[in-house]
């Protein structure tokens, strides 16, 4: 190894069953460099890190670490740590119910001559370790859980650093920190940088990247987009690189002319929110949506685009503000109230929040309607089968029978089932949060066409997607969100990708 490189990964390939997760990805880290690893969800950031730290095994590729004269393959995080790679994860994974000092030295307690833990020595060592990352006035004998998340995060970092690491990986460390805490973290990062530690920084906050990083590596769909010095990559271009330009056959879809009629005429407002907010996820926002309109929400991950939709549907109970639906105030306490009013919500995380894995396609399709009609009015089996068949055909779901378990379908077909689940309830206002994520291009086209068709029939749709082209093709209006705040609205007239990206990126515009 030369050129002051502390880590170099070459031609890393990694496959999950059915998916190419990493394709010939290169990554290199200089000594004393803070290097941002950027990309949208599913771009392969976490996979790359997990390959490096030995959580996943790579299919092929080579990893070299400074000071080791041969290729390194880590089989476990412990082994990675031995090779000088420490990781701090988004969620603090220390034990809140034991003392700070114990957390730092767990598994390697200093011992006395008769093999008991040398508490005095351990505590004094802990104080030293913590002061190295700028944490003073901490009682190391107190339980870790008594300190704030920020301090816990720092303790995790000090523990990682104490392993004499050459490479420190920080996986979204700032998502649970407030502004001051972030500042403190950055100071620590800069100190470590002085000492020659290479830091890999994964974050969704562009602002922070430009504050602290020296270089950026961008991944997209498991492939390397490029490695850039911070100075040569302005913010807007970074967003462009992250979101990319997917080649697909969707260019034929265009927003038809109904848009003007819907967006500009005096068709009645179907939904109006005033100062709606949910603490910690979305700051107060106002929104007006007209009947038959397709409204898009855009912004980077973590910008609050999903959270806005969740607050409207009451998936997260809004703690402030008012919501008017179809002309009257809607006070929902649970999603069922919103459903009964005529809303439907397709959540972002298909696996966690949508599919009911051990149930059949039929049951997954009718469950929302069944919940709406109530427990005592079981839909007759004939009716269930009829509905299931109808939507399997209408949405062209590929499955051997409607009794097939949904967990046995491909992602795209699962998503169609979930979409069918909500269409069966015949909603007036449909929220689609990333309906096209992780599914093939053909299905994407179908879903987009379906959105346009439904809107043409008078359904109001809120559409969230991280693919800008897809939004431009379907929506009348785009709401732009940035760091939990709705910052503006754009009409879809002569709107193109650069303009949207500029709006998403914020800061200094083009």
């Amino acid at each position, binding site marked *: 190894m030369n050129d002051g490189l502390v880590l170099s990964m070459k031609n890393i390939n990694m496959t999950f069953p059915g998916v190419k997760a990493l394709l010939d990805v290169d990554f290199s880290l200089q000594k004393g460099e803070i290097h941002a690893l950027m990309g949208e969800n599913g771009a392969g950031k976490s996979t790359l890190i997990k390959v490096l730290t030995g959580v996943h095994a790579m299919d092929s590729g080579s990893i070299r670490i400074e000071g080791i004269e041969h290729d390194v393959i880590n089989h476990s995080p412990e082994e990675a740590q031995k090779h000088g790679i420490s990781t701090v994860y988004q969620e603090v994974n220390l034990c809140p119910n034991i003392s700070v000092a114990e957390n730092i030295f767990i598994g390697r307690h200093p011992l006395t001559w008769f093999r008991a833990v040398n508490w005095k020595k351990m505590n004094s060592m802990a104080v030293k370790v913590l002061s190295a990352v700028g944490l003073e006035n901490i009682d190391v004998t107190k339980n870790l859980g008594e300190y704030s998340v920020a301090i816990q995060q720092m303790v995790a970092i000090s523990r990682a650093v104490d392993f004499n690491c050459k490479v420190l990986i920080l996986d979204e460390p700032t998502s649970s920190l407030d502004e001051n805490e972030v500042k403190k973290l950055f100071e620590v990062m800069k100190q470590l940088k002085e000492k020659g530690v290479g830091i890999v920084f994964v974050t969704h906050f562009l602002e922070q990247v430009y504050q602290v990083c020296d270089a950026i590596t961008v991944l997209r769909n498991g492939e390397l987009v490029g490695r850039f010095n911070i100075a040569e990559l302005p913010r807007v271009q970074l967003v462009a690189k992250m979101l990319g330009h997917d080649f697909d056959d969707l260019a034929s879809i265009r927003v038809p002319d109904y848009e003007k009629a819907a967006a500009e005429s005096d068709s009645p407002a179907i939904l109006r929110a005033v100062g709606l907010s949910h603490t910690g996820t979305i700051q107060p926002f106002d929104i007006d949506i007209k009947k038959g309109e397709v409204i898009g929400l855009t912004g980077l991950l973590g910008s609050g685009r999903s959270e806005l939709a969740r607050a409207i549907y009451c998936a997260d109970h809004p703690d402030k503000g008012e919501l008017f639906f179809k002309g009257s105030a809607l006070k929902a306490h649970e999603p*069922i109230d919103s459903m009964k009013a005529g809303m439907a919500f397709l959540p972002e995380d298909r696996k966690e929040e949508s599919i*009911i*894995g051990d149930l059949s396609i039929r049951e997954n399709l009718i*469950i*929302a309607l*069944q919940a709406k009609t*109530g427990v005592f009015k079981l839909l007759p089996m004939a009716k269930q089968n009829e509905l299931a068949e109808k939507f399997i055909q209408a949405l062209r779901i590929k499955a051997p029978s409607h009794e097939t378990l949904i967990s046995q379908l491909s992602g795209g077909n699962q998503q169609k089932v979930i979409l069918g689940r909500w269409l069966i309830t015949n909603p007036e206002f449909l929220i689609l949060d990333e309906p096209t994520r992780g599914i093939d291009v053909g299905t994407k086209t179908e879903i987009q066409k379906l959105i346009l068709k439904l809107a043409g029939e008078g359904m109001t749709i809120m559409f969230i997607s991280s693919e800008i082209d897809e939004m431009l093709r379907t929506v009348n209006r785009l709401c732009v969100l940035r760091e939990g705040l709705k910052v503006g609205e754009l009409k879809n007239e002569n709107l193109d990708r650069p303009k949207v990206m500029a709006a998403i990126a914020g800061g200094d515009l083009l």
Partner: protein
Amino acid sequence: MNSLRKPFSFKGILHQQLFLPIFALFLMLIVNVIITPSFFNVSILNGVLYGHPIDIINRASELIILAVGMTLVVAASRGTDISVGAVMAVSAALCVRLLGSNYDSYATPMVWAIVACLFAGLVCGSFNGFLVAKLKIQPMVATLILFTAGRGIAQLISAREINGIMVPGQILYVRMESFKEFGGFLPNVVVPTPVFIAIGFVLLSWLVLNKTALSMYVKTVGINPKAGRLVGLNSTLIIFFTYAFCGVASGVAGLISASRIYSSDANNIGLYMELDAILAVALGGNSLGGGKFSIAGSVIGAITIQALTTGLYAMGVSGDKLPVFKAVVVILIVAIQSNEFKRWRAAYSLHRKAGKEAAK
């Protein structure tokens, strides 16, 4: 359950869930008949059916009823209700206390005593349900409260005046012959009454679950509570219901037990029944991690456990050694049904195949 009409999916279910439980039960009966050749002999003695098979279904009744309740609790809340045995004791004590010990008439009409008995079960179950569903306490911890306190309550109910002071924890007796009928035989009927009660309870539960959307709701909440909430289900209410239902099941089982021994014994009614009930659910091929469930499986599981017990008695194993033999058999059955075992088996056959190919 509706798939019974379709032979194709019925076969699928048989292969997936019910095959092993039925297989285990058959195996158990076959072993019994080999060791005790007269195992299946049934005769009529004193005007009622008599024999090991009758004994099994008779004695399994309470367990079947408890297992049905437990199945729902496990499916919806991904946890177990360990208080069912103690709740049986509470219900039984209340029932017997209300009936009183008199040779001429009941202190309280029989109907009211039974209603009170079931109501006691419902109250206990609702208490558990409140702790688990509303306060989100872990099921094991929440039901531990009644598991320990329940027998105490039952003893307080079973107080009797001795030398002028009320002494709790006495065995109360009923003196009216007609109370025996629940745990014994109805006049001129050759089949024991508990069997009818168990069949009735299972049928009723099946109807409640499958003629309403409840079965689907319970499965959904057990499989993916987050998704359940977003499609508009009230998981709190559903989980609460399963515990309340399980409480009523315990009440019914308590009634049968009290009638069997013609008295209420706060210390022994339903003792260790919670463990058998949980085991019955597991033997029925139901995952203790919640989600999909099969009432039929649990019923088969309950009968299997009783067949094991009766079989061991028939072989002359004494009551104090019984748990050891029982444990060995249970370990075998559970191990065979476990996914790990299936994986090992698959890996082993793969390994052997590879070995053979390498040998060539």
